[in-house]
């Protein structure tokens, strides 16, 4: 494996998207196991009663995924450009390639599925565009979306894993007493040979020593940069070590970012690398408890991502009946679910932070003040019963658009409706939602 920018196709360490360290099925236990490097998934759990206890993983793409089973591979027969959503295989495709399967492989974003299949033409359409170009002859893996039921993750430490834990398809699982850590995504950095500052736009243009192999045309991508030995005058005014710099593609050996307002002077040396991405991602999560974890990954995208799976077709971002209690972290922010029906699925207690520590892609330190009256159980249509059951007497939530039913500010214990501006705690009394806080 080479460093970023090594130019070796398919070896962009640690963006491994094939290897699985340990696959744990029914009542299988991994205990006191350490994995290091080059895994797409270090520990994959599915079936009933699998457990990962006292383990650790260092460097890789995904530390633990709840809900994964082995699939099958098919080789592409044509190259595809970055961002492409159609993949070409030798025709005809096997009959087992059907819409809905999870698609994985090199440069295929996690949580991508098959939208449609043309068996005769040998093509599939996937739900997310490729994160970079895919050469002909690349393996693409297809797997059935399979839950982990009654599985446990406990006592795990992750370090330098792009996504520490994924609740990809978790039902009645327990995630407790884990410590998810890491600052730098890849231990090897890639050198700059130069950097210039534009006095008009304040944009800094860097020149990489080797082709950076970042996706052509990208913009606003978070990277970790070191300039002139650390806290750099080449950085934006708010920048400090381990913060992310949002960069834009220029060509194979150049990218830019918004630099300081004043002339930073002479460039001497610098380097770049990828950041970590997430501590915890939640895709399909049901009846699951996340308790007493330390989530302190310096994550560029989100500390906790509640919107995982939303880009699949149809959306796989479905949550119900979960608790999230006593977890430390969220310094990189929480990414709320774009489908707000999912909000009632989570009970939060003693968790979240007031302010973010890092300039990650999301800006919410918690989900307080995010829910509306329309998001309460029973207030939205749920014909298949996949979202939070309710309303149930005793259920309580915080909403941000409350008002007294009929209009005006609600006092205790007035019946509450939506459409207002009141940040209320509401309780269902068996008939109505009433203000209780």
């Amino acid at each position, binding site marked *: 494996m080479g460093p970023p920018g090594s130019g070796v196709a398919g070896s962009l360490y640690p963006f491994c998207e094939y290897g699985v360290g340990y696959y744990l099925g*029914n009542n299988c236990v991994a205990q006191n196991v350490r994995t290091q490097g080059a895994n797409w998934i270090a520990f994959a759990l599915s079936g009933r*009663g699998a457990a990962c206890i006292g383990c650790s993983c260092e460097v890789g793409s995904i530390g633990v995924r709840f809900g994964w089973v082995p699939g099958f591979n098919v080789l592409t027969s044509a190259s595809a450009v970055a961002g492409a959503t159609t993949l070409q295989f030798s025709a005809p495709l096997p009959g087992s390639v059907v819409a809905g399967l999870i698609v994985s492989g090199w440069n295929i974003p996690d949580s991508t599925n098959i939208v449609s299949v043309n068996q005769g033409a040998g093509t599939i359409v996937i739900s997310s565009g490729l994160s970079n170009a895919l050469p002909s002859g690349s393996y693409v893996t297809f797997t059935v979306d399979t839950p982990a*039921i009654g599985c446990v993750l406990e006592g795990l430490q992750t370090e330098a894993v792009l996504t520490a834990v994924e609740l990809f398809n978790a039902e009645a699982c327990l995630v407790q007493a884990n410590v998810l850590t890491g600052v730098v995504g890849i231990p090897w950095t890639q050198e700059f040979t130069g950097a210039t500052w534009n006095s008009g736009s304040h944009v800094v243009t860097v020149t990489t020593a080797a082709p950076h192999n970042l996706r052509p045309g990208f913009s606003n991508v978070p990277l970790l940069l070191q300039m002139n030995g650390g806290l750099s005058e080449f950085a934006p005014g708010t920048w400090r070590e381990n913060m992310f710099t949002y960069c834009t593609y220029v060509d194979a050996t150049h990218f830019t970012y918004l630099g300081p307002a004043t002339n930073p002077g002479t460039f001497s040396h610098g380097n770049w690398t990828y950041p970590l991405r997430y501590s915890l991602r939640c895709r399909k999560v049901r009846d699951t408890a996340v308790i007493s974890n330390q989530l302190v990954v310096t994550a560029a995208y989100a500390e906790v991502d509640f919107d995982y799976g939303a880009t699949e077709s149809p959306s796989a971002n479905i949550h119900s009946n979960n608790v999230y209690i006593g977890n430390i972290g969220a310094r990189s922010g929480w990414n709320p679910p774009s489908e707000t029906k999912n909000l009632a699925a989570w009970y939060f207690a003693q968790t979240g932070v007031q302010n973010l520590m890092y300039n990650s892609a999301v800006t919410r330190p918690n989900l307080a003040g995010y829910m509306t009256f329309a998001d309460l159980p029973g207030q939205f249509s749920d014909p298949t019963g996949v979202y939070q059951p309710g309303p149930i007497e005793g259920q309580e939530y915080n909403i941000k658009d409350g008002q007294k039913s009929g209009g005006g500010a609600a006092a205790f214990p007035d019946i509450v409706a939506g459409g207002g501006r009141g940040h209320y705690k509401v309780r269902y009394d068996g008939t109505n939602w009433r203000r209780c806080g």
Partner: protein
Amino acid sequence: MATQFTSYAFKSGAIGSPSSDTRVARTLPDRLSKDIVNVKDWGATGNGITDDTDAINAAIDHAYTLGFTHPQYTFFDRHGAIIFFPPGIYIIGKGGTTKLRFDRYNGGRFAQFRYIGSGRDVTILRGTYSTGHQMDSRDNGFLVEANAWQSQVLELRDLAIENMSTDTLSGAFMSLSGPTSVMNCRFKGVLGYYSGAVAFGGNVSNCIFECSRPITAASAASRSPHFVLSSFGEALTNGSVGAFFGQGSFSGCLAIGFDVGIIVAGLGGRLVSCKAYRCGVGILGGYAGGDPTGGGNVGGADQGPPLSATWGYGSTGWVHTANWCDRCTWGIYLGTVNIANHTGANSVTGDTGPTEPAGIDSITWSSANGGTATVNTHDAHNLPSGTNKLVLVTNVPGWTPGNTGNEIVTCNNTGTSQFTYALSSNPGGTGSGTWNYPIEYGIRVDAPNGQMFSANVLDAVVSVASFDITMPRAMYTGHNVAAAMRGSWSLEDSHRIAGWKFIQCGTVANHPRSIAFAE
């Protein structure tokens, strides 16, 4: 020229500098008889016919002359010898007259050995042994036993112990004191494996426990598995138990066909990723003790089940996670005194009880009492008198009240081979099918204090409730939390409900929050 077996020395040319070669010449017999004691070297046959008890005892006696005596822990006279069992079936017990002891002690000085087989399906220690006792102060009914205090089995690995007796109080293996490391073994008996509740630091992993009593049909006069709750509480009467475990780690195991699959008790431990299949109770936390033949609490705190209703031993500081109880009448039962445990991410599944469904010869319908179906069973059903909730599986869906053909139905015992149930409409013709006892509870909790239940999936089709707290003892019910669980709920209608906090629990139709203010 061939070198004689007895004199071949394992010393050859020097490696590297000859002057630095400090290896010591040893013979093959040195290695074979001192490093690893092979029971076949002492006359064991493993042929499944010959009684190998004396030969194995000779090997253990020889092992007692080996090993290491720690300069500080001098009460261990011999420590760490390895006794090896090649593949084979080793007959134990001289026709049921004696057992095999894995412990040795001499004048208060004890030994600790390691017992290693060649695989749990290829190294089998088999016998039929029963004494009617199961107390550490007597001749216990275990086929293999390491019962002398501090005379521990350090390790038991890759072998099976099968006590074919079906007598009450007989069992496969007992190790009174820990720590014992047990890996990849199989235990067959009325009681499979027993370690004392104060056997500190044990580790049992990847083992199978099989009941020597066969799973019977539901109609059997003495059906098995069948958990009987005594008047005292959760004590067992003539019960079979897969494993009784006190303190330590118990993981990746499977118990099949017992009245109770796995019992955990004592202070501190972990039960993880185990499965109980077709048991009366899948997992039991805490137990009640007493020797049914001894009249009470004879042997102290280390008594194991199956025991009568005289004494209790709690379960405190345990984690029960990722376990799976399938087709168990009660999935998880935390009885006696359970304090400060976390029971999370366990699965309880199944749509019928542990016994084999019994045959139904015919089902006929009459208009009596608004519609009545009369069932004639193939054998005498041996049902209790009065009403019983039963699982009926019928050839035509219309023969069950919910028109599913597979559901729990309340039935009236109307004869030795007959029962009836309400059925409003006539499906036509004559029905047939099977009946069985149902799964009653997913999780049942008694005397909880400081308990956490989270993310348990209660998928079993139950006749009473998925989660039940109707039987708490008044002195121990407080500081409990249940979170992220659905299913059906059976709650105590008293002030004890204030000892619980429910978070994300229940469904619209059945939830734990309909509590009167006075409670």
